[in-house]
């Protein structure tokens, strides 16, 4: 026997049951969904999307790219959130 402490895997498994990550990765349904998403990295879960072709200021574009990188967000997440916020301000129902 080595000098490593005895550990209780059963207890650790029970403790992990409260983790949302565990709920997904430890179920067949969750695992399939994760594999599907991983195998289709370009596929969006946002439903139908369209391209918006507009000219924006260059400094905004750089700021957008930097913020996405820094906060580990997708560029579309920031753009969609910005557009939605402005539209709500203008009274649009989304």
């Amino acid at each position, binding site marked *: *026997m*080595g000098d*490593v*402490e*005895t*550990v*209780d*895997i*059963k207890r*650790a*498994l029970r403790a*992990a049951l409260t983790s949302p990550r*565990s709920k997904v*990765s*430890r*179920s*067949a349904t*969750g*695992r*399939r969904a994760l*594999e*599907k998403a991983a*195998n289709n990295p370009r596929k969006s879960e946002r439903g139908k999307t369209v391209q918006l072709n507009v000219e924006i200021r260059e400094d905004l574009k750089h700021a957008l790219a930097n913020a996405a990188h820094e906060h580990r967000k997708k560029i579309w997440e920031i753009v969609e959130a910005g557009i939605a916020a402005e539209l709500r301000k203008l009274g649009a129902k989304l």
Partner: protein
Amino acid sequence: MAKIILVAATKGGSGKTTLAAALGAHAVSLGEKVVLVDADPQQSLGLWWERRDWPTNPDYISAVEDRDLGRTINEAKKRGADWVIVDMPGSLMRTDLAVGEADLILIPVRPSMMDIEAVNPICELADEAKVPRVFVVNAADKDWKLLGSAVEALTDLGEVLEPSLRYHEGHASAMVLGQTAAELKDASSRVAKSEISLLWSAIAKRASSRKRRA
């Protein structure tokens, strides 16, 4: 009638391919006709089989490009197999495609937290398909305190076959030569041979007791 064994685990590095090769070679040594089906894109089993000089027993079929794994397994049966051993990749969706054909799902698990917490999806899949499943504790060091804890945790989740396979350099070395640990000439390979032999008996008994629907 051919019996189909899926060696499956969603966790990488659990020893699926090494175990599939070891069991296949052992069954051949008992005079059985074996076809190995390699469903893993890594194709490690196929490369091992090539190093073994492309034998006709165990025979080999690559299923990596085949979306219909059931069809490949049927082709393996048509080659006169007593046993078809399918080496699955660590993908549940791929395992979905083959589970309906299986007589037994063999789940190799190393005695580690990460391996054990990864077994649930395969167990669920097997249970949904009503296919028997068993665990094999792989790369186990009998002196590890962790081993007892691992076997205890796995026993709660299903049947754990005896014996556990010890961590033995021969399993890795033999792969280089297109052989299995049991086939090596060194003295320590006797342990591997004895373990694989006992394990095969347990697996064959369970797979043979399965009544397949017509």
